[in-house]
C-alpha cells in the first residue's frame, strides 16, 4: 500500500481551522465584554489565520494510484 492515511489525517486540518475561525468571530459578535478572554481568542484566531495561510502556500496536489 502506497499511502498512509494516518499521517494524512494528523496534519493541519484546514476545514477545522476555518470552522474554529468562524466560531471565534461569532464569539466576538456576542454581547458579553470580557477583554481577557477576547485577547486570548484574538491570539488564537490570528494563529489559525497564519496556519491557514501557510497551508495555502502549498502548490501541488498529490495523486496516489490505488489501482490502474
Amino acid at each position: 500500500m502506497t499511502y498512509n492515511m494516518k499521517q494524512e489525517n494528523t496534519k493541519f486540518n484546514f476545514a477545522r481551522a476555518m470552522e474554529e475561525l468562524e466560531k471565534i468571530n461569532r464569539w466576538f459578535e456576542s454581547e458579553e465584554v470580557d477583554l481577557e478572554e477576547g485577547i486570548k481568542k484574538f491570539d488564537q484566531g490570528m494563529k489559525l489565520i497564519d496556519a491557514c495561510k501557510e497551508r495555502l502556500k502549498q502548490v501541488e496536489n498529490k495523486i496516489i494510484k490505488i489501482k490502474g
Partner: protein
Amino acid sequence: MDLFDYSNAFVKEEAKNAFATLKVLSVTEFNQYVNTLITIQSVIVEGEISGFKIAKERLIYFDLKDDKSIVSCFLFKFQLDKMGVALEDGMKIQVTGLPNLHQKGRFNLVVELVKPVGEGSIKRALELLKQKLLKQGIFLLERKRPLPRFPENIGLITSSDAAAYTDFIKVLQHRFSGITVYFYAVSVQGEKAPNEISEAFNYFNQKMPNLDVLVLTRGGGSLEDLMAFNSETVVRAVFGSKIPVICAVGHERDESLSDFAADKRASTPSNAAEILVPEQSEVAWQLNKIGERLIYQLDKKIKILEHFYQSLEYKMNLWWQNLRQKLELEERLLKSFDPEAILERGYSITIIGDKIVKNPMQVKKGDNIKTKLKKGEIESIII
C-alpha cells in the same frame, strides 16, 4: 459426457451410413442428442419482447419475436434483478443465452444476459428501473449529506485514460492545492464496468473510510456508453457509500441514475472539481477579511470597555460632586445653628444647672445662674 461422445461418434462415423445402420433412440435420448448439438455455445438474439410474465415470483418467461418468427425465453428473476434491467412487452432487446430443448419437448432460449437496444428501449428500461429504485427511497433528498467545504483527501473513481480524469485533476489543481487524490481506475463502459465501479466503492469504504469525499465520474458518450452509471449495481454502490459521493457523468445535459443516488450531482468532471473545492485566491481573500474582522472586533471590545470606564468615571465624579455639595449645604446649615455664632453677635445664654433658662419661672430667689458671653461667663445669684 457419454452421450456427447456417443453422438460425436454417431455423427462422424455413422451419419454417412445407410439408414438401416442408424441406431434407434428413445425420445429422451433424442432430446438429449439434440441438446448436445444446439448447446455448443451461447448465441445472441435480437428481437422484441412479448408475453412477458413472472411466475411464482421467481421464474420469468417471455417470447422474443421479429416479423416472421418467435422464440421462447426463460430466466430466473434473481438473474434479472442482478443485471438491474427492467423488461416489458414491446421492448427491443438482445438476449445472450443457450438454446435448449426441454425434456417435455418445449424449445427455448435459456437467458444469460439481457441488454435493451435502441434508444427507445434503453430509455424505457431506464425509466422502469428508475421507478423501481424511486420506490425503494434511493433518490430521497432527505438522505443527501453535505459535502465537506475543504476536502483534503479525495477518492477518485474513473477510467485512467479518460478525459474525465485529466479534466478533474486539472481543474482541481487550478483551484486548490495540498489535496491528496486517491485514484482507483475502473472501466467506465462495457460489461465489466458496473462490477469494477462497485468494487472501487467497496475498497474505499472498507479500507479508507476517513476520506472526505468520493468522486465518480466519466466524460460524455452515447446513452449506451453511459449505461454502467444507470446500472442497479452502480446505483446501489453509490447509495450504500458511507463516504459522501459526488457524481459527474457525461456532459451538461446527461443524467444518470447514479447522479440521482449521489449526495451531489455535478454536470461534468470539471464541474465536480469546481463544486468540491473553492478557489484558493478566494479563500486567501476570505482569510484576510476574517483577520481584519478580528482586529476590528477586538478594537471594538476595547472601545466598549474604555467607554464603560469613562462613563463610570464621569458618574463617580458626578456623584462625588453631588455629595460634596450636599455636605457643604449641611455644614452651612449646621453652622447657622452654632450657639457660638449667636454669642458672636452679642447675644448671651443663661444656664441653670445644665439647662438653658428660657423662662423666668425656671429660677427662684437664691439660685445660681451662669451667663455665657462671647468671651467668658458671668456667675450670678438671683435676689
